């Protein structure tokens, strides 16, 4: 173990530069964020991730945000265990009917001010599962969505762009 720790000391940082958000994302967020909310939050956001029916591909990339290359915490973005500690609900999947109530409850348990980020094509419009008897479809059909991050799954850079845009708008 010592070897690992020593190497870590002498090696340069792996963390990469932050990507800059897309204009479209900034516009989407700008439309929903109120100034009062921005003042309350400061430069930090606590995120509760909710898998509402994903294939788990989106989760893999959300996990990747925490690896040393992206290191999402350096931006003040933190994944938390409870919706009660969260400012942001990050939702994936075509919202299955069996998960609908759980998603609603998580949303209601999140204190105001709060934002919903819908991650992945499934969360946007149901993706390849659109039209299934078992899926509600877009996340926006269940809870109001402030930002969509597209992709199947969106890669960590796309996720970071979206989250940084949200953070900038919120602070």
């Amino acid at each position: 173990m010592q070897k690992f720790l020593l190497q870590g000391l002498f090696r340069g940082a792996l963390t990469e530069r932050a990507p800059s958000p897309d204009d479209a994302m900034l516009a989407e967020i700008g439309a929903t964020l109120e100034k009062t909310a921005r003042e309350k939050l400061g430069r930090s956001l606590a995120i509760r991730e909710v898998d509402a029916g994903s294939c788990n591909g989106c989760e893999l990339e959300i996990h990747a945000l925490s690896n040393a290359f992206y290191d999402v915490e350096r931006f003040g973005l933190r994944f938390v265990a409870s919706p009660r500690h969260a400012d942001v609900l990050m939702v994936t999947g075509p919202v299955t009917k069996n998960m609908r109530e759980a998603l609603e409850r998580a949303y209601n348990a999140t204190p105001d001010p709060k934002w919903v980020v819908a991650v992945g094509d499934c969360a946007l419009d149901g993706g390849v599962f659109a039209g299934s008897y078992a899926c509600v479809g877009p996340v926006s059909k269940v809870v109001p969505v402030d930002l969509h991050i597209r992709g199947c799954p969106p890669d960590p850079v796309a996720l970071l762009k979206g989250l940084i845009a949200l953070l900038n708008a919120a602070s």
Partner: protein
Amino acid sequence: MLFTRKEKPEATAPGAPECRPWARQDVDAGGWRDAAGEIADGKADLLSLWSDGVRVYLAFLPQGAAAPRIVSLACTEGRFPSVGALHPPALRLERTIADLYGIEGDGLPDKRRWLDHGRWGVRHPANAPLPIETASDAYEFCRAEGAPLHQIAVGPIHAGIIEPGHFRFSANGEVVVRLEERLGFVHKGIDRLMAGAPIAQAAKVAARISGDSTAAYSFAFARAVEAALGVEAPARAQWLRALIAELERLANHFGDIGAICNDAAFSLMLAQCGLIRERLLRAAANCFGHRLMMDRIAPGGVAADLSPEGAQALRDLLEWINLMVPRLIGLFGDTTSLQDRTVGTGVLSQELARQYACGGYVGRASGRAFDARLNVGYAPYDQLSFEMGGSTEGDVDARVWVRFDEVRASIQIVEQILDRLPHGPIHVDVPSAPSAPCEGAALVESFRGDVFVWLRIGADGAIERAHFRDPSWLQWPLLEYAIKGNIVADFPLCNKSFNCSYSGHDL
């Protein structure tokens, strides 16, 4: 002892599509019972049990055989002799048949709905759906009673970034007396989505059954379609498929080894393994255009070729991983605080692993030597040499060591593929419409274990029916056993060492 089955079966009588490469046999109730009895007696391993609304199907692998068998039974009155009554591993599959098709196993001891939570607005949606008032069905959990026992309910939303499911613990103080799982939260209606879908669309859905196994599912789906239609992907495509599948396996094993150790509060391993995983995904994106390599394997071949620069980048990456692996093994094996949490934790007995025909690292860590790449065999694995890891300890520790074994095997395989990748085309056209309905099946080793696929293609070229059985179907029930007698706080660690798929199971 390795073989591939490429021989084309002779044409069959119209109206009775033969399944390829493994023949399907229509049997009567007696024949069905015999097959179920063979499985229950341990003379054959259950691969899957499913329905298409008209028949029920049973796929199994007789002991020592390299070719699975499939038997089917016409369900005239919507009933069939229960397999689950004789053989518990079939229980959940049978409950699912009742949920989706309204076809019930006679004598099935557990009649509770499984994937159907009463929220779809229909009953048996895949077979003459019956509208119902949307509500939520009450679910009766098995009881564990006694003065010191208390229940802990967890989920469907868990504390981490993981998939949703519900766990009901009965505990005596800190010790788990019983765990009961309730799944189905991410049911997306795959069977129904498949019915009538054009092959290209169905391939997209198949790739999204379980995102962490997207390459394995695409591989299995492609092989089943090709078997049904009697086409063969070009040699280069077959080798590239294996390359893609092994990169997926490596990325998942590294990610999970790190995550397991992290659940034992050893985050250094997560950080180190996270680096390797990320570099693998970036290499995958550079070589094949997608980090998870989704939709890269398709019926007829592969969607992206490997450039010489891509091959060189993979070689460089492997060289670095080869340096890292012994260090990680040292770190895992020499850290006593970590061993303290993993050794003897969450033991799965060899007997249960055998009974459930449990695949992947979970089965191999409990003495079951099965790997679809070796035991059933498919191209190009019949031309590659590698060793399957194994252990008989059956604890969290053993499951991690087996994963290290598998990492080493995958590295060997990738090296062989890069050295010997044949030249030539990477794709052939699949016929848009076969001359008659046809059926195909495939068994492909995902990182988690064997994925079974069966499908029927109609005369119009669309998928008529398809069935996918994730390895998790046979691993989830075993987690209920493995956690018994452990403390509640060790559940995340045990759970992560199994890492069953929710999405792949819930379909």
